[in-house]
């Protein structure tokens, strides 16, 4: 048990060291070093939630285009959106089972 704790602590310290190094390099070089270790678990979660994110982003675009909530747009406005964004509209129709 104590070995697990020690290994976890050491791994954590290593991660923190990496984080510090990343920030240090970033401030020294101005380069953009992409966020690290959490990307592993993040990528799994991302696969699960990316569909929801696509729907949300599309809804935001509709809101910006017509200045109203996507649920309130008319059929004509939907057709206009569909004409301009055929793939997104198709995706939304499938995702929301319209």
């Amino acid at each position, binding site marked *: 048990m104590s070995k697990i704790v020690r290994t976890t602590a050491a*791994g954590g310290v290593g*991660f923190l060291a990496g984080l510090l190094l990343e920030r240090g390099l970033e401030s020294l070089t101005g380069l953009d070093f992409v966020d690290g270790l959490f990307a592993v678990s993040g990528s799994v979660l991302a696969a699960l939630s990316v569909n929801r994110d696509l729907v949300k982003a599309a809804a935001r675009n509709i809101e910006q285009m017509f200045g109203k909530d996507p649920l309130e747009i008319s059929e004509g406005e939907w057709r206009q959106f569909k004409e301009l964004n055929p793939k997104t509209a198709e995706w939304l129709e499938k995702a929301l089972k319209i």
Partner: protein
Amino acid sequence: MISVSFLTSMLAGLVTKLGIDQLMKHGYMPQATYIKAALKALEKDDLDEAIRSYHLSVRRWRPSQRTEVAGEIIASAIAVRIAKLERRVAELDEILYPRRFSRQFWLNLLPRNRSKLQALQEERKGYEEAITVLNKIRDNLNQRG
């Protein structure tokens, strides 16, 4: 005194961190990771980051329906911004370049309005520049996407 095993584990953590950074940076992570990052950047209005993540999503992975939709969403977000700016430019043009002998035409000749018109000219210039930048960003998305 720090033990060798502690240092080894620490080094392993460090190497993992740097390794994953590199994988992420060069497009080796799952496609969904990059699509998600692109949409998150778009939400924050960071178009450059959104396009960078979008390009990474198709750099090593075959384009999928999701990447196509994400690309279209980004392009649409840029188009909405351009349209808004163009509307504002058209509004300013009505003030700055009115029809001859219209009310605005005479108002523009008054000396007290000169500084206001100058400020509007500057504002218009700023919008024109922003439109040019957005068009370049959109071209960048289409070219490499």
